[in-house]
């Protein structure tokens, strides 16, 4: 008996399992705290599944079964079916576009037997598998532009369909795969360029175009001045600098205003402006403000479990899904929040450690994918609750209420653990 048990769990990475269980438990406790009212009959609520925390417990149970099934599956199954699962995921996304149900303004839900299900969550897993499969295949040479473009397409096609479903937040997560590609050899300068591009677009929207033009001119003049020696040595450098300057100016002065008046529709423009806080959308600022009040009122020690007034009194909207961090921030304060974030950092670093000990590219890419997805969710979600990012509705991994999300992250992590247990094999 003992021997077979030892065999059964052989090779499992216990630290990750422990962190996983800790986060899900904190999640259920937080959802409970967000919903609990002094006079609730807890056992009855759990049995009747009529509260989010009781349903989350059910999803946790189902997730554990899924985890066990994955653990008992042969690793080769995942490498063999990666592309098939990816194609299936895309089909599912397209299906939702056709027959999906509208929930809170996004057209991304399927209803199966009374339960709502969001395929956009699941396709993160499919995409991660497909990307690992592609990058590990023997024909792929990731130093070639062609391979990089194909890899980018694998990551961004699902994002495109998801944007059509009005779930821009979830689509954003697919950009996390560029972190994986960076690890696999995508030039670092691309990350810098992407970052600069985002800054350029945002500043074009937020700052007056003439002001920006002056700023660009000044920067260019300074650069030319400080690089005058290099420029003397090599005349083409001047052309590059002037080219970048011309591009930025034309982009800000003409392309963005043109896109806003001629290409985009009125309501799209409005949505962008609201997202950037340029136009005041009372509902959006209300959410952030209430969430900041809840977290800020936690202080250093927090008010104590179940003692928060803001989350308990329904001031914070969506408090068991997107704004679940408010409960942690209010009840456990700064200290609790830092420990909570520490758990995530530990999980992410452990996953990176696991990734680096893989022999097969497939497993390494996959594991980095898991880390990147969790990191993006974490960063965007928490930044949103503390007013660092616009309100983008994506869940906090393993903690937010939601069956699709919990099951997806469970599968992501346990497939990685399975691959890790078989790290002696060469998988591709």
């Amino acid at each position: 008996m003992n021997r077979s048990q030892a065999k059964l769990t052989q090779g499992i990475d216990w630290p990750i399992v422990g962190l996983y269980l800790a986060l899900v438990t904190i999640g259920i406790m937080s959802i409970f705290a967000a919903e609990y009212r002094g006079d609730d009959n807890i056992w009855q609520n759990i049995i009747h599944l009529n509260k989010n925390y009781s349903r989350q417990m059910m999803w946790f149970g189902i997730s554990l079964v899924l985890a066990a099934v994955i653990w008992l599956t042969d690793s080769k199954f995942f490498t063999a079916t990666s592309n098939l699962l990816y194609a299936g995921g895309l089909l599912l996304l397209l299906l939702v576009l056709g027959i999906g149900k509208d929930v809170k303004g996004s057209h991304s839900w399927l209803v199966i037997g009374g339960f709502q299900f969001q395929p956009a969550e699941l396709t993160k897993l499919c995409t991660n598998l497909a990307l690992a499969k592609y990058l590990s295949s023997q024909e792929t040479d990731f130093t070639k532009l062609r391979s990089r473009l194909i890899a980018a397409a694998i990551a961004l096609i699902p994002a495109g369909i998801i944007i059509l479903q009005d779930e821009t937040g979830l689509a954003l997560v697919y950009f996390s795969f560029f972190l994986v590609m960076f690890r696999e050899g995508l030039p670092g300068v691309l990350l810098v360029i992407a970052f600069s591009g985002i800054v350029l677009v945002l500043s074009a929207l937020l700052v007056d175009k003439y002001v920006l033009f002056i700023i660009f001119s000044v920067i260019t003049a300074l650069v030319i001045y400080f690089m005058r020696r290099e420029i003397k040595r090599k005349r083409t450098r001047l052309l590059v600098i002037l080219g970048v300057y011309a591009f930025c100016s034309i982009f800000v002065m003409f392309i963005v205003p043109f896109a806003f008046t001629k290409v985009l529709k009125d309501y799209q423009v409005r949505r962008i402006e609201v997202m950037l806080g340029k136009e005041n959308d009372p509902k959006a600022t209300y959410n952030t403000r209430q969430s900041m009040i809840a977290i800020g009122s936690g202080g250093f020690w927090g008010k104590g479990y179940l003692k928060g007034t803001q989350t308990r009194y329904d001031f914070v909207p969506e408090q068991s899904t997107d704004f679940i961090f408010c409960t942690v921030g209010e009840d456990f304060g700064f200290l609790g929040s830092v420990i909570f974030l520490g758990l995530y950092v530990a999980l992410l670093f452990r996953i990176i450690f696991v990734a680096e000990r893989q022999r097969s590219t497939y497993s390494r890419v996959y594991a980095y994918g898991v880390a990147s997805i969790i990191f993006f969710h974490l960063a965007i979600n928490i930044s949103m609750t503390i007013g660092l990012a616009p309100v983008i509705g994506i869940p906090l991994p393993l903690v937010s209420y939601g069956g699709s999300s919990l099951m997806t992250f469970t599968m992501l992590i346990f497939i990685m653990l399975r691959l890790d247990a078989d790290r002696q094999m060469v998988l591709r």
Partner: protein
Amino acid sequence: MSVFNQPRKRVIQAIILGMVVLIITRLFFLQIVEKKYAKLADANAVLRKVVYPSRGIIYDRQNRAILSNDVLYDLVVTPASVKAIDTGYLCKILNIDKEEFRKRIVNAIVRNGRVRQSVFAALLPAEVFGQLQESMYLFQPGFELVPRQIRSYPYAAAANILGYIGEISPEKLKDSAYASYNSGDYLGLAGLERTYEAVLMGTRGIQYLVKDNLNRPQGAYEGGEFDSAAIAGKNLRLSLDIELQQFGEKLMKGKMGSIVAIDPQTGGILAMISAPTFDPNLLTGSYRSTNSVLLNRDTTKPTFNRAIQATYPPGSTFKPMIALVGLDEGVITPSFGYPCGGAYYGCSRPIKCEHHDAGHAANLRLALSHSCNSYFSHVYRLSVDAAKFGGIRVGGLQKWSDYMNSFGFGHRIGVDIPSEARGIVPNPAFYDKMYKGSWNSCTSVFLGIGQGELTLSPLQMANAMCIVANRGSYYIPHFVQSIDNDDTHLLDKYKEKHVVAHISDTAYSAVIHGMTDVVESGTGRVAQIEGITIGGKTGTAENYGIVDGKRVKLKNHAVFVAFAPAEKARIAVAVIVENSGFGARYAAPIASLMMEKYLKDSISTKRQPLMKTVMETVTLDAAMVAKSKLDSLNASAAIKKNGTK
């Protein structure tokens, strides 16, 4: 490659750590450095007050406000925050005993729980509110006064169109679509108030006020930095003419049925009367729940909007549409004639016609003005049996019902008030089920004269007149012409022109001339207005009901449809007067008076006696009137209004 890129692990770790450090820094400022957040959350120091925006006003086409807002106050309770207060004093102000007080608190807990607000005493009378406001600090923070907006209706008309507002139900509160509502909030529950709830409600604001040790608000917290302003609801501007609406309601007094008047050039509804009707002031404020029970139970069903919810066989008023299908399909031309000798013998059972003189159906125009049953029975059969469809059961009836659907029949047209009826347009599947597969153009020949299984709502009938008057196009009938500062897409579908058939202008001219002849010299002469050419069509809808389990013929419904001026119509009307017999007797004068009122602004002296007779006529069943409390209810609303003003 793995070895080559190994250092990049460090970069990724650095990115993660950088982000987490950024978050922790922000948390440090939010939770430790900044004290105002903690204070905001402290209910004892800062009062969080919801500011209710004023609800949008509804104006008619002449920019007259047809409803206005009054403010009354609710006393709401948060059971968990009720501290030791002088319950006796509160009970005295509210004029309730302690037992009742306890019962209301228990009720509030059962409904919304301890920490959420529930209404304790709704819509307080002015003197109670005055007393309470002075001593409110004694009862805070457990009790609060919350303003509620109550509608009032100076014209006392258009009840079924405007709808009403009321407290949100507990079921809706749980629905995520209503996430921004709190218990006790009011929202539109019917009519335009319901359809345009999103624009009418506005956006609630929040104020944070500093309180002193007696809980009295002392001014804005942090200079109002955290406040968000309430944004008033947007006003609606209707195509409705409230005077025409009132006039129509007077004409329909004592009768059962409805009037729908539409501007064919925009699709804007000018008036929509459902009779008997009620005073909208009955459904405001604290009277709403009692009165709505009484109205819903009343034998005359005043809350049933007959103009869109009831459907009737259109009778002969349907003949222009039969003609249009025949013309569009090319089975007839305007000069097509039929030798009717007093009945249609094409099917086994003859269909009687009112006329038998030779040549009364020698062409389309004559056939329409004489309302020849034989002619239209024949045209219907020609249309559905046309060889190109392979017979009625293969494609003929399907094609015919497709035409009807494009005319706006058999489905909801999409008017901007809820609960529209579809009506029935039989299609092959319908008859397959009804006759178990054995049917032909003779089984359904009654469709040709607007009888049989076909039913339309008065709105659909009026819209059909728009199609004829516009020579083949219509806009979806609607009330709201514009929304102030509109940024929604609610009205887009009403700006789109629908073209239904591609019939030549000469063919339309034949139909329109046939209809003007009806009023000039035919069955609808009573509808004439001096100086205006009117196209009209009388109809008599046979009416069957079930009495004692047997299908019996009841008294016919009178129907009249019309449009004027015939050259370029500005108004299209459909009138139904239930159980009043032949169409020309009551329906035609009512339609005509409506058109005269709208086009000429007043009724000529010559026609005043007709108007008076129509208004005084009662066709309602005497037994039903005896059981109805509607008149006394409406009278009570009028007293209430005049009494307070």
